[in-house]
């Protein structure tokens, strides 16, 4: 029985961390522009595709004997840096072209534009990979990441899992330092609070918003690399589902709050894994046969229903503050 | 003074008792009472941040008070939604104008008629007689109200294209469209030039005289307040520091201190500007 429960917790924690990293990208952009950046799911996927290309080129082919080719951690570092640069730049370009001109339009307009950008990026990725004859991308993950480092109650914890947690911790610490304890962070928070007054205080809000998109894109890129290594199968359309789940996590935690995004991601990850494994209890406690009905196909639905229930009883999310209401 | 109070209480259309509201630690409104006699014009004044708008928002149901009661003709309104409060008979305007931008002046007023229209969803679908009569009466009422506030010609113009003064008057007309017993005006004279303020004064008087609607006014323009109001209540830091007839309130020490600060209350400024047009040349 304890194997079963630890399995749920560990896997829930890992997928939850991934959702949290992606959710940070949504929360940063939402905090500044009050915009659901639908395109973020494709920016995150671009990070994954970058990782696929880097590992395909630099790291040794699967068949080659061990020890040849670059050190896997070096390749991983190269992939991270490339993803941060590519996705950060992509996010800035998206903001510059598709969101900035619509800054003053009614809220619905930039939202629709974001949906449009996400559809465009899906097919652009398909076009780029299609020309090289690829649709289903199998990421060439080096052994160092797939090797089981240790086993906790029958659940193998692999190299990528540890890297995932370390990178997430480092990023969270860095983000916290940047946003809460630095001049730039204060400027971003000022623009998030009140763009007009921030402008009056001499803050160039356009530059701050671009910077936020850079950070959001970088977070998405890193999330994409880690996702690609943990689940090494991508296709041009596989960004949508994790994207929607990550945004639900951000909303669950309280949109606009960074710790909220992390908490929301972890909670969603564990809820999802719990619902997905629930019917497994039948094998341990045959008496609970009725649980067999809650099959795996209801896993994603369960996560959505959890989001809706929480939003109804605590509309600003777990850690979010009730926003102000000037009348 | 208290005699006036008790007589008014008997005939008061709106009586607010011990209304309190706190935001976190901040005590925004502290157990304020207000008696509004029927068909009267009363004002609630006080320096910025005194809690006037919060007080208004509690009466109109936008915020729920922490304590106290609000009775309109004996019916307690606390806990009602803003649209139920409007239906009960209290209409309001806003500190910053909140007209419906993409609607014409007439349409704005027609929205005000919404709580008074009987025709429902099915009536609109089938265009029943009840629906047609409703629409006719609504358009008629809109016409009357537009004429009342002198905007007859601009009926089909978009509300955003009207000059500032007209927009204010349109907002008042829209509030009147809900057939209120009491109308709450939140700084209607803000940003108005002297000529517009004079027109506004005439309009507010005719609202009370011709339509018999009780007016409760929040305003900083002391000349307007002093000449219009029959009764004034002064709030400072959420508590009522004075109330009474205009000339009584004007010379009240606590009021001057609230507006002009301690020195003024001691009479330094009082002497040079004790002109007839009121105390607070803030």
């Amino acid at each position, binding site marked *: 029985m304890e*194997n079963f429960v630890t399995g749920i917790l560990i896997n829930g924690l890992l997928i939850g961390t991934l959702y949290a990293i992606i959710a940070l990208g949504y929360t940063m952009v939402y905090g500044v522009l009050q915009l659901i950046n639908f395109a973020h799911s494709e920016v995150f996927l671009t990070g994954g595709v970058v990782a696929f290309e880097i590992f395909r080129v630099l790291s040794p082919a699967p068949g080659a004997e061990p020890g040849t080719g670059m050190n896997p951690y070096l390749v991983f570092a190269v992939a991270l840096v490339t993803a941060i640069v590519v996705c950060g730049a992509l996010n800035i370009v998206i903001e510059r072209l598709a969101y900035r001109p619509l800054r003053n339009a009614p809220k619905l307009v930039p939202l629709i534009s974001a949906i449009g950008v996400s559809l465009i990026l899906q097919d652009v990725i398909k076009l780029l990979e299609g020309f090289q004859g690829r*649709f*289903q991308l*199998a990421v060439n993950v080096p052994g160092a990441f797939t090797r089981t480092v240790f086993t906790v109650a029958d659940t193998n914890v692999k190299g990528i899992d540890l890297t995932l947690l370390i990178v997430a911790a480092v990023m969270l610490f860095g983000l916290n330092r940047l946003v809460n304890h630095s001049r730039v962070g204060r400027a971003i928070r000022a623009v998030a609070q009140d763009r007009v007054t921030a402008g009056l205080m001499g803050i160039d809000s356009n530059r701050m918003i671009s910077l936020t998109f850079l950070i959001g894109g970088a977070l998405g890129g890193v999330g994409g690399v880690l996702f690609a290594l943990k*689940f090494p199968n991508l296709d041009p359309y*596989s960004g949508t589902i994790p994207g929607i789940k990550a945004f639900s996590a951000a909303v669950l935690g309280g949109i606009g709050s960074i710790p909220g995004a992390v908490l929301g991601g972890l909670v969603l990850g564990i809820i999802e894994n719990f619902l997905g*494994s629930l019917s497994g209890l039948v094998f341990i406690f045959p008496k609970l046969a009725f649980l067999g009905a809650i099959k*795996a*196909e209801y896993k994603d639905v369960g996560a959505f229903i959890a989001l809706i229930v929480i939003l109804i009883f605590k509309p600003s999310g777990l850690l979010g503050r009730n926003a102000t209401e000037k009348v | 003074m208290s005699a006036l109070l008790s007589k008014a209480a008997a005939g008061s259309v709106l009586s607010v008792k011990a209304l309190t509201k706190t935001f976190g630690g901040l005590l925004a409104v502290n157990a304020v009472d207000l008696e509004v006699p029927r068909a009267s014009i009363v004002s609630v004044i006080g320096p910025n941040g005194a809690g006037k708008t919060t007080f208004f928002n509690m009466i109109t149901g936008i915020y729920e008070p922490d304590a106290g009661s609000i009775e309109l003709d004996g019916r307690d309104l606390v806990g009602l939604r803003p649209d139920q409060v409007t239906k009960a008979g209290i209409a309001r305007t806003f500190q910053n104008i909140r007209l419906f931008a993409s609607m014409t002046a007439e349409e704005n007023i027609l929205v005000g008629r919404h709580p008074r229209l009987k025709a429902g969803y099915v009536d609109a679908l089938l265009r029943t007689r009840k629906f047609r009569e409703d629409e006719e009466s609504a358009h008629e009422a809109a016409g009357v109200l537009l004429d009342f506030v002198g905007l007859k010609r601009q009926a089909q113009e978009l509300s955003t294209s009207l000059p500032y003064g007209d927009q204010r008057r349109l907002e008042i007309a829209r509030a009147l469209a809900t057939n209120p017993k009491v109308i709450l005006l939140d700084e209607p004279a803000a940003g108005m030039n002297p000529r517009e303020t004079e027109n506004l004064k005439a309009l507010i008087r005719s609202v009370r005289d011709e339509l018999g609607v009780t007016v409760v006014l929040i305003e900083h323009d002391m000349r307007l307040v002093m000449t219009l109001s029959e009764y004034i209540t002064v709030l400072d830091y959420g508590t009522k520091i004075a109330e009474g007839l205009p000339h009584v309130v004007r010379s009240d020490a606590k009021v001057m201190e609230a507006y002009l600060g301690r020195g003024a209350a001691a009479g330094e400024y009082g002497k040079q500007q004790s002109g007839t047009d009121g105390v607070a040349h803030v």
Partner: protein
Amino acid sequence: MKKLGLSTLTLGALSLGVLALGSANAATVIKIASMSPLTGSSSDLGLQIRNATELAIRDNKSAFTALGFDLQFVAYDDQADPTTGTANARRIAADNSILAMVGTLNSGVVIPSSEVLAPSHVAIVSPANTNPKVTDRGLANMNRICARDDSQGPAGADYLVSTLKAKRVYVLNDKTPYGQGLADAAEAFMKTKSATIVASEGTEEKSDFSSIIGKIKASKADAIYFGGLYGQVGPFSKQLREAGVSIPVMGGDGYDSPDLLSLAGAGAKDIYFTTVAPPLTAVPAARVLSSRYNAAYKKPLAGFGIMGYDSAKVVISGVLSAIKANGNKLPTRTQVETAIRGTKLSAGLLTGAIDFNSVGDRTSAKMYIIQVKNSAAGKLDFSTAGTVTVKSSKQ
């Protein structure tokens, strides 16, 4: 006035431009269409069918020019969506030069589309629609060369239970008509045998299978039947093996693609699947086709490509025999439809002899049981673990 003049002007230009395009060319045109998803997440499989059909048509163009016909190919994208499928079917019915069609991938698309094409007798040969309902309706224009769910499922299940001696089977499906149809048929068959079904559930998950793997471990199953496609089963097997579960995974022709090996990596070991398409190693002609396909489309040939190629060959031979029967003149669609239904073809086909029964199912098909294991070169590859001859129930 200026505005009006302009609009009439452009319309005039439009109509003049039309004349150039619309002129009839010398040889009468015969078109063969293909319909499969070219967009969306299953476009990889849809393209296999489209490209293989194009290749087959290119190979047989000379046979038609000899008889004075210009054989052309036109591909339609149904976006795996029934509405688009029926709209395309109407366009095909309206274009009289199209005599027959190869397609589709999704049963949900072919059922309504075939009903639209039935009155105009446009024959369809399907490489991949395995849902029994497709031919049970008894349409004259609906044929298929792939095995039905209720024959492919039991074939795989029988191998799992009798050869691999599975006792506790965990059944999974991918919630698509293909995957669920196959899994249900296999499950029904296994229930009649001695195996117990420990659980049967569907999942649309494509990346994190940890919760299902946890259940499989808890259920102590000794075999898995997963009705689904390689894009999902590959990562599933990879994570399954990495979690220390080495029990066999059995499925249908949806696994048949080199991508299964790349996606599953080391986890591909002991994956079995049933397919009508021969493994490249077994049939030399298949290797030749695979190299030509790779050259033309820079993509490896997968099982659906082989099925698409054979479906196109059946359509082409049907049209040719209809032409001959009609004295080398352009045959009507009905003649092509009856010719295709009456196909008796064995030469030049990769999936063995093909002939159809009264409702368009393949009377008998040789199914290969493919196993993924270490080949001589030490690399995991497909190898034939057995063959089963599957007969269709109706005659």
